[in-house]
């Protein structure tokens, strides 16, 4: 019988090694798998390359992972946040690398990895300094740049409901990058607010089919980044 359930966030992320590339879902304060990230802080893997749209907020979640010196390189579209100084300070001190990728290109590169597309052409960045090292090409009289797929060893995902096969649903704009990252990682690890029996999710309502999910752990009352920040919390 297929059952992808893990009993704890710690066991679900236990084998993430030093040097791994890790996608982390979420955008702003919504859809972030905070409990999985905090488990990764406890676990201590180092030299990580992390892919997320941002670099975290406050001193919890992704910002805390970065602040704990576990991240060698960030791949993201917007590394500034009014709510966090963690990344900027390390970056200015030359202690963390940055690959800046426009948001839509980031999303499409992740999707391409999941879809078996090694490269594609996009108009985004044409004529800007971000296209300087990129191959360009004309189609229908317009210039486009070539962008490669973006894969990861692990993806840390937050969803609303999961069944034991790994079928997932998300809540509102907490969906964001999560379904794409599920497709693009060798091992996709999901924290779900609710773990339900097989058949309890309407097949029409499934956003991420179970084929893209390897491990599920129920976190029934997940914290929210904005609440933690409002409470002045930090981690660890």
């Amino acid at each position, binding site marked *: 019988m297929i059952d992808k359930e893990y009993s704890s966030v710690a066991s679900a992320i236990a084998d993430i090694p030093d040097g791994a590339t890790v996608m982390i879902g979420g*955008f702003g304060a919504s859809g972030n798998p905070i409990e999985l990230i905090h488990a990764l802080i406890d676990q201590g893997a180092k030299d990580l390359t992390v892919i997320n749209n941002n670099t975290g907020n406050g001193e919890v979640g992704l910002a805390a992972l970065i602040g704990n010196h576990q991240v060698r390189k960030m791949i993201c579209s917007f590394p500034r946040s009014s709510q966090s100084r963690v990344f*900027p300070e390390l970056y200015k001190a030359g202690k963390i690398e940055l690959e*800046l990728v*426009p948001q*839509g290109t980031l*999303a*499409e590169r992740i999707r391409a990895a999941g879809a078996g597309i090694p490269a594609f052409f996009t108009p985004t960045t044409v004529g*800007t300094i971000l296209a300087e090292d990129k191959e360009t090409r004309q189609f229908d009289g317009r210039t486009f740049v070539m962008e490669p797929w973006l894969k990861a060893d692990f993806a840390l995902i937050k969803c609303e409901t999961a069944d034991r096969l790994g079928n997932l649903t998300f809540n*509102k704009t907490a969906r*964001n990058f999560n379904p794409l990252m599920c497709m693009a990682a060798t091992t996709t690890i999901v924290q779900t607010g609710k773990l339900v029996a097989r058949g309890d999710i309407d097949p029409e309502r499934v956003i991420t089919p179970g084929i893209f999910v390897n491990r599920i752990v129920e976190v029934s009352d997940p914290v929210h980044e904005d609440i933690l920040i409002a409470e002045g919390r930090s981690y660890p």
Partner: protein
Amino acid sequence: MSTGWNREEMAARAAQDIPDGSYVNLGIGIPELVAKFVPEGREFIYHTENGMLGMGPPPAEDERDLDLMNAGKKYVTAVPGAAYFHHADSFSMIRGGHIDVCVLGTMQVSANGDIANWSTGAPGAIPAVGGAMDLVQGVKHIFVITQHTTKTGEPKLVEHCSYPLTGPGVVSRIYTDLAVVDVTPAGFRVVELAPGITFEEVESKTGAPILPPG
């Protein structure tokens, strides 16, 4: 002394140029105010990059849904007929030319429609681009709302942008505190002057040749 348009008036003036039924993406800052000035009888559907069509106004603080934010990371609401989707679908709408109008703030716009609104290029600054480069290349009509000059009086409408570009040749119309300005094959052209503003004043505060209305 000139009077010109204030922030709300600039946003209201831009809203006048958006056709009924348009799919609209509003940048952070003054562009967000456009949603307050939808002309009578028209309806716009708002897109937000983080995965929603049908974005509504901010909720009361005690009615916030922590999973319902916009691309500016502010809490918002959903109007009837909204839809949620993931980031790749969201940027397919942008890159695929399905969004009708994007209204953006800017640091500089050049006479050929180049826009520079993501980076000062200053050494040591942390680069952050977000969805700006996707928007300017993908959306059908790029409108800019901006003060005509910087706080220190430097023109923001220029011959060539000195800041790094967000995208070349993409802006079609500019709404400033002084005028509505089109980017035409012949360069900037004033479409309309704000109340109490003369063409000569606009010309003197523009860093490139600019044509009068008509």
